Every structure is written in C-alpha cells, then in structure tokens.
C-alpha cells in the first residue's frame, strides 16, 4: 500500500510532506535592546497634529560621545517638540543627555547604566530638533555639540566639569556665527584645510513653511506626507573655523554652491579622503536628486564631481532618495567605499571605490539592494558586529509614505518597518541576517537616527536607535568580542582632540591590512563613537599600526595591545616617509 500511495501522489504531482528538519539549537541574539534596564527612557516627540507636516517624520538623531572625558560614551538624543504655526499647542519636551556610569569590576564584569543629566547640563530645546554632530571645535579637550533644526541650529559649547562635578554646556551659536536658520538635518565636523581646527559642514534639506504647507496625496488622492520637491532644495553651508571661537561662512567661496544645480536636499553627510590624496572630501546624500562628491581641491575650495566619479546617481543613471550614508573599507582594499540607504523601491546602494575616487555601483551584486527594496532606510553604518575583521552593515528603517495595512489597523503613524543587519561574507557579498540577530530586528518602528559605538567598552559595537515619535532603543552587542579586537582613540593637538578623518592601517603578518577611519559623522543625523575598533577575526597578530593623520603626517605605532583601547597621539609615533 505504501508503494501504491507513493506512486499515485507522484502521478498527481503532489509531494509528500518533507520530514521535519532536525531541531536547530536556539541561535543566540547578537543584539539585545536594553534601553529600559539601562535607564534610557528617551521618547521622541514629533509634534504631529494631523496636518502631515513633512518635518514631523524626519527626526531625529542621536550622538554617542564622551561628554565628561571619563573614558566611556555618553548619550545625547535630539528632541523634536511642538511643530506648527506659532499658535500650535503641543507638549514640549527636551533634548536629553545621559551620562554613562559604566563600572568595570575587579573581575572584569561590566555594569552599564545611564543617568539623565539633562537638567544640570544646561542643554535645552530650541527650534524643532533634527540631528546632531559632535566635535571639539575649540580644541579645549571637551567635545561640543552642534544640533541641527527646522529653524535655528544650536552650537553647544562643552564647558567641562563644574565645581559640583557636573558637565555643563553654554549655547554659543550666535556668538560663534554658527547658525543656519533653514531646515538642516546632517552636520559634520571636519578639518578640511589642515589648520588644526574643526570646520563644520551643515547639510540643509528643503524650504518649508507652515503657511504654504499643504499635504500631498497618494495615487488615490488620500492625504499623505510629501516627498521632496527638488526645486525647493536649499544650499548646504560650510563654516570655516577661524580658531578664535568664531566660524566664517565660506560656502560660496569654497564653491559648495556654485550654481543652483549644485543644491540638493541633504539628508546625509560623510567626510573622508575619497581619492586618496590625503585631504578630506565631503560626500552628501541627497533626497531624490543626485548625490554630491565634493573633492577637496587643497586650496580651500571644493569641486563636485559625483557624476563622473560614478557616485552621484545609481548605475542605471537614476537619482535616488538617499538618507543615511557611511564610508568605510568593506572590501579591505584600503579605500573608502560608500554605502547609503534609500526610499522604498530603490534598495540600498553600495559604491565601490577603486582607490582613486572613482566608484562603481555594485549594489545588486553585493546583495545589499534586493533585500532592502521594500524598505526606506535612515540610520546606517558600517560596523564589524562580530569582530571577524570585515565591515558589516546595519540599517534602521521607517517609511515616509503611509503603509496601508498599518493605517487600516488604526496606527496613527503608519510608517513602521523592521531593521536590517547585513553580514559581510568576505567575497564582496552580504547576507541579510537581521532575523537571526535578535528580536529587535523584527519590531517594526519608525526608526531614524542610529549611532554606533562601544557603550560598555567591551570591544564590540553597540547601536543606539532614535525612533520617530517613540522610545529609543539601546542595542547591546552580545557576541562581538568573542573574537580578538583592538581599539584606538586617536588624538591630535593639546590637550587632545579626536583626529576626525585620520585613517589607521593595521598591518598583520601574512594577511592583508585592515583600514579604519576616525569618524563621528555618517549614518542619519547622528554622531558615532570617534574611536576605531578593529575586529581581528582569526588573526590576532598585529605587526604595527600606521596612522595617516588629517594633517598629512604619517606615523607608525607598535605598542597597542589586543583586547583594550589605547590612545595614540599625533607626534608620538615614528614618522613614516
């Protein structure tokens, strides 16, 4: 009978149910959200009022930076707040600063906790907040903050610890000439002219006015959030740090806005030496218009050559709605490759650098594009989450057009999407592993900002996510440091400022070098850990470290132990010709 049944089903083209697969051991979560237990209770308020104002779905960012110089990363969340014409009434909240109270016991056990220190810090909400950049603009050894807004931006000077031991901030925006009253989103500190002072690139988005606002409509005529109108793009701004506490607007002089065609609605900025000439360039991810690659001409000016470089539009020739962006050497060939996330129906984009600043769109072949096709990405960064020595990619998502199914279910902000984690397979391809990497990747949210860094100093990268109109998440990495690792903080000048833009080559015996860059910018409207973290995979031997400082100097260092963070200062290594 058994034979008869089998034959019959075969004739009918029906397969017998397969034997159940052997039970897999439960996979360990890579990232676990521990925001609540760590004391991080920040909730973003987008101020939505039913008017479908576009800014309400665009915020906000988050920063990881060591506010009090105690060796661990503190958190700063950008708040939105009330949104609408002046008479609008919504509940105001504030930006929030959390101090990291990490304790490492004698047995090496790490106890991580955050304390809200906003009140004593003096930081307060100004205009509607969007993003944040972190950098020590006055070289006093304390990291300052620049908050971008719909309206006037804020430059918060870190005054250091006061007599009570609290770190306080003073707003110096107007005094420093650092304001931009337009709608700014990303910002980046960089020393483009090698004068030792951090300049500031401010990415501006669109003209927006409550007075002329009207909601856009879906194909069926239902009200929905608007997308960008390219003609409404406003120019970015480049502020030169004069070294006396003042910034000078040199946007035009530097050629950043040579013609109206050069204006794009900026949502992401990544600064790095893309063409390998030792000078820091600027890449701007624009919404629905070509992205810009501002190549540093080494004379105080920049030239946008993105189209010719192959990094302005997709390989098919189409401008994309780029949001989050990051530069990093994912393929281990020593140059800065660009990854960015885009609107639903475009997928993530990966531009591979050939080392000269010319790029090739390898999005499809890399496997980053198709799995992200249905999603709209915002915060994103290269990170080696498993310390296997290869840069992986984490993207947080959230739509900008209403998702029917969620709207039908009564969701007041029906833009929720899941996060993604892409594992670098080492052959130019990536595999999406979010589902296996933790329950948090399956929670649909309207994620925007994401900042990447080692919160517990245990040698792997954690992630802090700021969700629009929702609670923040603190994703603690559970597994990265099982591989050997080496962490560095690179300082320049006195008393010492993070050498943003410095590149480190970690030479390994018999293995290709690993390259990492000191950066806080990238992602979406957020600021990352300025330290560099090398996951060493199966090759823990380190021959030496070669640092390419933004000043142009190149130095070699030998004494950096594996399994710890070491500070390297410019001028203390052996000069490399």
């Amino acid at each position, binding site marked *: *009978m*058994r034979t008869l*049944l089998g034959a*019959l*089903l075969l004739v*009918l083209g*029906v397969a017998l149910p397969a034997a159940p697969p052997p039970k897999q051991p439960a996979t360990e979560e890579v990232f676990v959200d521990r925001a609540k237990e760590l004391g991080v209770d920040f909730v973003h308020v987008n101020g939505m009022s039913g008017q479908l104002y576009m800014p309400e779905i665009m915020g906000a960012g988050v920063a990881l930076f060591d506010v009090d110089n105690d060796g661990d990363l503190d958190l700063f969340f950008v708040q939105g707040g009330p949104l609408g014409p002046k008479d609008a009434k919504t509940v105001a909240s504030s930006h929030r600063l959390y101090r990291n109270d990490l304790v490492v016991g004698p047995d090496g056990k790490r106890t991580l906790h955050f304390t809200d220190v906003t009140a004593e810090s003096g930081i307060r909400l100004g205009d509607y907040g969007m993003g944040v950049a972190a950098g020590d603009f006055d070289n006093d050894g304390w990291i300052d903050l620049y908050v971008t807004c719909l309206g006037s931006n804020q430059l918060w000077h870190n005054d250091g610890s006061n007599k009570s031991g609290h770190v306080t901030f003073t707003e110096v925006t107007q005094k420093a000439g650092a304001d931009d009253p337009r709608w700014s989103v990303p910002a980046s500190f960089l020393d483009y002219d090698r004068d030792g002072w951090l300049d500031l690139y401010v990415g501006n988005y669109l*003209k927006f006015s409550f*007075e*002329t606002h009207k909601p856009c*409509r*879906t*194909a*069926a*005529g*239902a*009200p929905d959030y608007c997308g960008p109108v390219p*003609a409404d793009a*406003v*120019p970015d701004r480049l502020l030169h740090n004069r070294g006396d506490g003042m910034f000078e607007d040199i946007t*035009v*002089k530097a*050629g950043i*806005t*040579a*013609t*109206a065609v050069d204006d794009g609605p900026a949502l992401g900025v990544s600064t790095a030496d893309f063409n390998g000439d030792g000078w820091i360039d600027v890449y701007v991810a624009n919404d629905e218009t070509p992205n810009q690659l501002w190549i540093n001409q080494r004379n105080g000016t920049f030239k946008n050559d993105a*189209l*010719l470089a*192959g990094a*302005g*539009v997709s*390989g*098919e*020739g*189409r*401008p994309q709605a780029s949001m989050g962006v990051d530069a990093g050497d994912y393929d281990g060939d020593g140059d800065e490759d660009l990854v960015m996330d885009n609107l639903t*129906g475009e*997928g993530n984009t990966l531009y591979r650098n050939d080392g000269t600043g*010319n790029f*090739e769109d390898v999005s*499809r*072949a890399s496997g980053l*594009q*198709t799995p992200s*096709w*249905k999603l709209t990405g915002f915060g994103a960064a290269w990170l080696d989450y498993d310390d296997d020595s290869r840069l992986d990619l984490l993207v947080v998502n959230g739509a900008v057009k209403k998702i*029917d*199914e969620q*709207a*039908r279910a009564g969701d007041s902000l029906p833009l929720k999407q899941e996060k993604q984690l892409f594992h670098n397979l080492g052959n130019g391809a990536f595999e999406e592993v979010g589902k296996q990497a933790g329950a948090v990747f399956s929670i649909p949210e309207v994620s925007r900002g994401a900042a990447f860094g080692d919160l517990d100093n245990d040698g792997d990268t954690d992630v802090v996510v700021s969700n629009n109109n929702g609670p923040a998440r603190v994703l603690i990495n559970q597994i990265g440091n099982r591989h050997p690792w080496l962490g560095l903080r690179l300082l320049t000048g006195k008393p010492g400022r993070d050498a943003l833009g410095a590149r480190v080559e970690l030479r390994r015996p018999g293995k290709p070098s690993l390259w990492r860059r000191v950066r806080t910018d990238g992602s979406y409207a957020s600021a990352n850990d300025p330290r560099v973290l090398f996951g060493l995979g199966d090759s823990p031997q380190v021959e030496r470290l070669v640092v390419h400082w933004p000043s142009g100097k190149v130095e070699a260092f030998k004494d950096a132990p594996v399994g710890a963070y070491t500070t390297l200062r410019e001028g203390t290594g052996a000069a490399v010709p």
Partner: protein
Amino acid sequence: MIRTILCLLLIGLLLIGAAPALLPVPPVDTSAMEPAVREQIETERKTLEGEVKRGSPELAETYGHAGRLYALYKLNDAAQACFENAVRLAPADPRWAYLLGTVLQATGDFQAAESRLARALELKKGDAATLIRLGDVRLQLGKVDEARKAFEAALPLQGAAAAAHFGLGRVTLARGDAAAAAGHFEAALAAQPGASEIRSPLGLAYRKLGRLDDARAVLAGYGDGRVTFPDPLLEQVAALSSGSRQYVASGTTALREKRFAEAAEAFRKALEIDSKDGTLWANYGVALAGLRDLAGAERSYRKALEVEPANARAHYNLGTLLAGRGAWKEAIDHLEAAVRLDPESRDALFNLGQALADAGEPARALETWDRLLKLNPNDVEARFHHAQSRAALGRPEEAVAEFATVIAAAPGEPAPRLAQATALLAAGHDAEARARLEEGLARLPSSEALAQLLVRVLAASSHPEVRNGAKAWDIAQRLLTAGSTPEREEAAALALGELGRFPEALDHQRRALAATVPGSPDRHRLETCLTLYEKNQPCRAP
C-alpha cells in the same frame, strides 16, 4: 486508514482541478480617497463580490479588471491578489501573468516577478514589453546572461530598441566590457535622445575607456529623462484613472521631459477633478507656455494665484511671462512677490533684475543683482548684468572694471567684451576701447559684433589718434564678403568716409538705408551720416 486518507486527498485534488483556490483580496480603506476614486473602487469591489457570488464565467476578467484598478492607485497588495486569481482562473491569458509580474517587480519580489513574466512570454512570444521587463528583472537577480538574451530578443521589436540597448549596455558594463557598453548606450541615446538618464552610464563607460573629455561632455547633458518602451497593457491601466493624482503624476513626468502637449492634457484632466490646486494651475500654465499658448499660460498662472495667492512659482511664472511681453510693471510686481515668498530663489531674483533693467530702472536692478550676487558671487551672468546696470547708471568706470572680471571668467563670450568697449567709449576712453576690441577680436575672430564695433571706432572715433580708416575698411570688406546687411553696409560707409572715398561711402550708406525699415530708430543716424557723405565729410558716430 490509509485508504480514507487517499480518498480525501483525491477528492481535494479533484476539487482544486475543478475550481482553483482563490486568494482573498485584502480590504482597501477608501475613506480618505478622492470621491471619484472612492466611488470607482467601491463599485469595482461590489462588482467583484457579485461576480464571485454568482460564479461568473468571466471571473478572470473581473479579477483582472479589479487588479488593474488597484494597480493604478498603487494598492499593490490588492492588485497582486486580484492578478493572482486572474492567473489561476485563466492560466492561458498572458495579460494576467504580465500584470502580476509588473506588480511583483514594483514591490521587489523579483524571483516571483521573473517566473510570472517568463510565463507571460511563453503565452505571448516576442512581446517587447515582457522581454524588456524580464531582462530588467533578471539583471536585478544577477542573471546577467539570461538578461542579455531577453534584451537581445527585444532589440528588433517595434519601439523597443532604446530600452533593449539600455539593458544590453548595463549587461555588458556588468561584465566589464566598457567598449561594448558604450556602443549600446550610444545606440540607446540615439534612439531616444530625450532619455537623458542614459548619459550617466554612458559617461561612466567612457570614463572606463579613458575618454574623459567625452565622459564630461555626455554627462553635461545628464537629466532625469527616462528610457521608455511601448507598454500597451500598462497604458490600459493608466486609462482607467478617475482621480486627479494619476494625471498629476503623468503630467509632471511629461513636463519634466518637455512633452508639453501630453503634460497640458494631463493637467487639464486633473484640473477637471480638482480645480482648487494652485500648483496644478501653475504647472498647466508651464505646459501651455511650452506649447507657445502664452495667453492660456497667463490665464492659468492667474488662476493659480486666485486659488493660492502665496504660490511663489505662479508669481514667478506669471512675472516672467509678463516681462517677456514687456508688461514691466505687473511683471515686476509678481517677480517681487516671488522673491518675497522665496528670498533665496535665484531664478526669481535673476528675472526680477532683468525686468527692472529692461523697464529702465537700473538702480533697482542693481540692488537686485547685488542680492543675487550675495547668494552666489560666482554667478558670471549676474555679474555681467550688475555691470550693465552700473553702466546704465552712468558709472562706466566701475562697469569697465566689473566687465573685466566677467571677461576673465568667460573669455569665450563676446557680450562682455562688447559691453566693456561700449562703457569705455561712454567714458571717453576710445583708445582703450579700441585696444580691448582688437584684443577681443583676436581671441574671438568670428564675432561680427566685435568686428563691427571696432570698425566704428577705427572709422568714426572723435579722437584722431584712435582712427585708422585703412584698417577699418579692411575689416569692413571682410564682413561684406559674408553678404550684405544694413549694419555691414553702414560700417563700410563709415570706413570709406574716413578714407575720403565719399562716392563709395554714399553707395554703401544708401544700401544700408534701403534695407532699413522706415521709422526704425537707426534711420535717423543713417540719414545724418548720408548727408555728411554727400557733403564729402566723414561721419563721427562710433
């Protein structure tokens, strides 16, 4: 036991064979939709429910129709379910497999899209749209060789050459054959010159081939014009529209690609449904202006401002149009409104500056150029006009210096050189004017305007040391070899007058007069000089 299971299984299979299992169509929330669309969708839903209930033999067609409607309004989940049901009910109908494939392609389900499109191709061999889409999907899936086959099959088909070459260019570029890719992209661009998106991959192919100048040249014309191919089934989908948004979308695309007639038609239909949208009226006006229907454009811009008084673009467009026909006062009012509403609009500032200058208000024009130059000091054209306004305000020395910066920034342009020489003449610096004109003519020998002004200076300057009749005559003769025009004849007469050859000067001057329209402002000058030649006197009027 086994016998029972077998029987149940067979019954189930027979049932499936009789009537394929159909997918439920996800509900659609129509509450916030445009009334016309809501009614259309509700009617469709009721029709579908009724047909299902009565087991209509036309159910595949009904599901297909509903699917098209949902697809039209980007209700992809519902569209997908409908097309899937249509496929199950009528598996031999290529339309449903194709349309299902397009929805799956749009939503990023590329594997499923490939399978459906491949099936559509089996059912309708040699269909261009199916082949192009199949090629695209296979390229997306990394099936480069199979994509190539699809594009090659589409290549000879009517209307598909541009899209097929575009696909083949991407295929060959993915394989590293930049030369072949460049060839395909060139062919695609030749077949559809408006598809400016092709210029990006073409530029990159040139770059890979080391042809950097070619790359820069082709990229200079880059834009967002899309490659298109005939897609009759999707055209049928578009034709179902009863809402304004579809027309807005298609009108906007057509406008971007300068297909003005199609844009105007789409906006007109959209306005029939929603006449309270100022932006729609403004866009309709732009389309009409593109069709040279300036009266219609003006009406549209005014309508836009009637429904939306703070529409900066409508003010800008109307002001620009009015300036074009010399209605300066109103033009300036609207352009000022545009600038007030959008203070950083460089286009509005530029057109306002020009309108003020043309209206004879150089002081206000100068202020406007100042504002524009503050936004962008590198704007050479604005700098030129700024200098012109200074000259018009009787500040030729300042103008001359500013023209020099424009000439340095745009050495190939004759206009600033001409303007600089004119300003020098106005300041009485004839010798320097001559020197600058000679320099300009050496740099731009084909510029007739520079040559003519030089002849005038050489022949008619009031400064004797500047004049050189022989040289003037030499240049004037060369100009005449290209044919006779009033300006050339007058220049020749001036030169001959300076040489004392008055009978010949008279001949040329009479020819110039004969070709000049009676009542023209030039006529008085020509007649004055004619009288002087008749008296054997040269004319001094550079």
